[in-house]
């Protein structure tokens, strides 16, 4: 068939042509009067029974308008129009029977018995012939010039209608979209004229403000603003609006509900204008912010009932800082209002006591660096309350922009600090007042028992010894209480220095020999590797003395206590081993707690205060060491202390 002279050639730009045709959205649509009038006119002018607007797609010609023909479409290969679109001007066949291209065309040999054909390509102006406007007769014919010219003009009109029709369709769609948006936006939408008179109101205004949209017609927008913001339109609405170039301006304002109460909204104002022309009016979109207001009020109510302040603090990557949120309690802590500190953190730092400022700042940077809990106690020079102590805690979170955001709270702890000071003064006063008489009691008894005043009558000796032992226990208890108090208050100072361990162990061993002999126990020192440790000599001796006297007290007569040391990686382990009863699993868990002894009766039998091991643990931990024990009930115990090894370079 392809070499049949009647087979139409395919245009060179066929694929683009087809795309252009599809884009007009004409194919297979119902007939439209405006196109039917063109075909009727064409038929009348040319005196033909048939006129068509034919569109050629890949497979067929399809008629957008048919005048005098029933068929809706025909195959492309038999279409006269498929030939016509290959040219730029009128394609005319006066007598098909005499034309070898068409004489055997089924449309010639059968219905509709075409004898005459004249078609003008419908050019879209981009070089695509979409189809033709054609006239057809069942007998041979010849068009005159006037008819040909009319056919060209009608073809041009048809293509222009294609274009306008498409634009109208687009506009309808756009309008439908706008209408849907206008009606269903989760906000109230208002359109005003240049004077701020409302022209349209979306149904959203009834939800947001309680008005029926029709009630607002021709009402001034200003009337919806609460009195405090009445002046806004003059300065903020009208003037800047005239200057903005189509971009919406966003304001947080309060609108008036029809029943009078204020409604917080985010108001976006956008001028409505055609390109390069002054605005026709304004589009106002009001988003309900009352949910946010409610959340804020809830937070405020909760915050009001908390002591101190709750807040967010943000540190930006460039070192700038601000408080995105502070509760009213910021006045209690810093004597400043939330508004005053929001963007000016310097004002907060200025009221922190000068001696604490640096520490607080370093604490914040450390917390930001490690994303660790910020927890500090510091002093504030409160403008109303004077010098106060506060305690702050906040946990940091890294934000996507690289800043760090803390959520936390700060409390006034002046009362607690005052109590602590009173307690500390009380403890030191009481202990001094207790020690003075105790010195005399213990001293007198010591002199009497020591025979300084002559032989003690045997009938009194036991009682006097009991009195002396107990006065010593009392002294130990006071010493321990004072130590514990100092440790808890962090007031004990440690003088860490390199120590020759073996010398120190030998001294400890020697000073406990007397006590060992009293109990009939052998106290041995097994020399170790001769290392240097980093510790406070006085405090280390205190701990060793506690461990040794415990070991001696709990050893059976004729038993043995061994003091030794070993290297354990970075630390030196000092061991005190005894052959005592060992430590029961039950007691093991609380052995380092205050006032703990395996058996309440131990305290009286063995003369301890129950504070020794608790103090030892604190002391060792303050020297970066560890304390522990290994024990098998019935087979003795070994208490150990791990103390950092001294190396060149880790000296304090």
């Amino acid at each position, binding site marked *: 068939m392809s070499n049949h002279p009647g087979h139409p050639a395919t245009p060179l730009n066929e694929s683009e042509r087809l795309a252009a045709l599809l884009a007009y959205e004409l194919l297979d649509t119902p007939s439209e009067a405006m196109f039917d009038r063109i075909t009727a006119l064409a038929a009348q002018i040319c005196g033909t029974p048939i006129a068509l607007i034919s569109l050629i797609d890949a497979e067929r010609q399809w008629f957008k308008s048919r005048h005098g023909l029933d068929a809706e479409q025909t195959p492309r290969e038999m279409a006269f129009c498929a030939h016509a679109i290959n040219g730029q001007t009128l394609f005319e066949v006066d007598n098909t029977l005499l034309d070898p291209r068409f004489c055997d065309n089924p449309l010639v040999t059968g219905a509709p018995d075409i004898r005459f054909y004249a078609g003008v390509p419908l050019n879209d102006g981009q070089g695509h012939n979409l189809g033709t406007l054609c006239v057809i007769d069942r007998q041979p014919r010849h068009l005159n010039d006037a008819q040909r010219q009319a056919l060209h003009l009608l073809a041009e009109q048809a293509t222009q209608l294609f274009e306008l029709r498409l634009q109208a369709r687009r506009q309808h769609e756009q309008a439908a979209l706008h209408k849907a948006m206008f009606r269903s936006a989760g906000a109230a939408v208002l359109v005003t004229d240049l004077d701020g008179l409302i022209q349209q109101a979306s149904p959203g205004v009834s939800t947001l403000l309680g008005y029926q949209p029709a009630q607002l017609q021709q009402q001034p927008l200003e009337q919806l603003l609460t009195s405090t913001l009445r002046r806004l339109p003059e300065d903020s609405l009208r003037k800047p609006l005239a200057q903005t170039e189509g971009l919406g301006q966003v304001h947080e304002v309060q609108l008036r509900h029809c029943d009078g109460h204020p409604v917080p909204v985010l108001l976006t104002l956008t001028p409505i204008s055609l390109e390069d022309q002054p605005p026709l009016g304004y589009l106002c979109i009001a988003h309900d912010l009352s949910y946010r207001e409610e959340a804020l009020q809830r937070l405020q109510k909760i915050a009001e009932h908390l002591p101190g302040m709750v807040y967010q603090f943000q540190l930006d990557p460039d070192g700038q800082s601000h408080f995105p949120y502070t509760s009213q309690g910021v006045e209690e802590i810093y004597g400043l209002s939330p508004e005053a500190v929001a963007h000016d953190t310097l004002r907060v730092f200025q009221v922190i006591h000068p001696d604490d400022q640096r520490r607080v700042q370093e604490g914040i940077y450390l917390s930001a660096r490690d994303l660790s809990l910020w927890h500090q106690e510091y002093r504030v020079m409160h403008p109303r309350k004077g010098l106060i102590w506060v305690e702050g805690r906040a946990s940091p979170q890294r934000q996507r922009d690289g800043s760090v955001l803390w959520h936390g709270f700060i409390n006034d702890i002046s009362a607690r600090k005052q109590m602590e000071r009173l307690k500390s003064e009380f403890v030191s006063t009481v202990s*001094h007042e207790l020690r003075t008489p105790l010195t005399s009691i213990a*001293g007198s008894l*010591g002199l009497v028992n020591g025979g*300084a005043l002559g032989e003690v009558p045997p009938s009194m000796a036991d009682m006097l010894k009991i009195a002396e032992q107990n006065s010593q226990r009392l002294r130990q208890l006071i010493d321990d209480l004072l130590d514990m108090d100092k440790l808890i208050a962090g007031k004990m100072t440690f*003088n860490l220095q390199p120590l020759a361990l073996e010398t120190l162990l030998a001294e400890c061993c020697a000073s406990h020999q007397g006590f060992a002999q009293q109990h009939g126990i052998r106290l041995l020192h097994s020399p170790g590797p001769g290392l240097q440790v980093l510790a406070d000599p006085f405090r280390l001796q205190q701990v060793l003395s506690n461990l040794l006297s415990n070991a001696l007290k709990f050893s059976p007569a004729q038993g043995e206590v061994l003091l030794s040391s070993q290297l354990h990686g970075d630390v030196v382990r000092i061991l005190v081993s005894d052959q005592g009863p060992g430590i029961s699993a039950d007691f093991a868990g609380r052995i380092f707690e205050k006032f703990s002894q395996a058996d309440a009766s131990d305290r009286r039998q063995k003369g301890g205060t129950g504070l020794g091991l608790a103090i030892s643990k604190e002391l060792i931990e303050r020297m970066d060491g560890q304390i522990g024990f290994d024990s098998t009930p019935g087979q003795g115990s070994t208490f150990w202390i791990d103390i950092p090894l001294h190396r060149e370079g880790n000296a304090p």
Partner: protein
Amino acid sequence: MPELKRILHVEDDPSIQAVARVALEAVGGFQVLSCCCGQDALDQVQGFAPDFILLDVMMPGMDGPQTLEKLRQLVDIGQIPVAFMTAKVQPSEIEHYRSLGARDVIIKPFDPMQLATQIRAIWSQAHG
């Protein structure tokens, strides 16, 4: 080395005064003058001419260190060693008292049977 005989003891608590006197006289065999306060000591130090001065730190009015300061103007503490007695036992404090001119510090509560021995040890260090 000169012989240690006479000890001036300054202490506001009469009970401790009494205990120390027995510890030093009966156990140590020294001659003791007890003073109840710093001023008392200043008034009597030249008349008594002690070999050794034992000074309580915490006293009402003039405390131990203040008394020592005044004593230095009256006697040569290079020849007459002074020791403090105190309940405060922080090593740094002991250093502080030494820097004031004290030979040593005796910690309260003291062992009365050992007090004379302790003082003799300080004495022999001072004159050794």
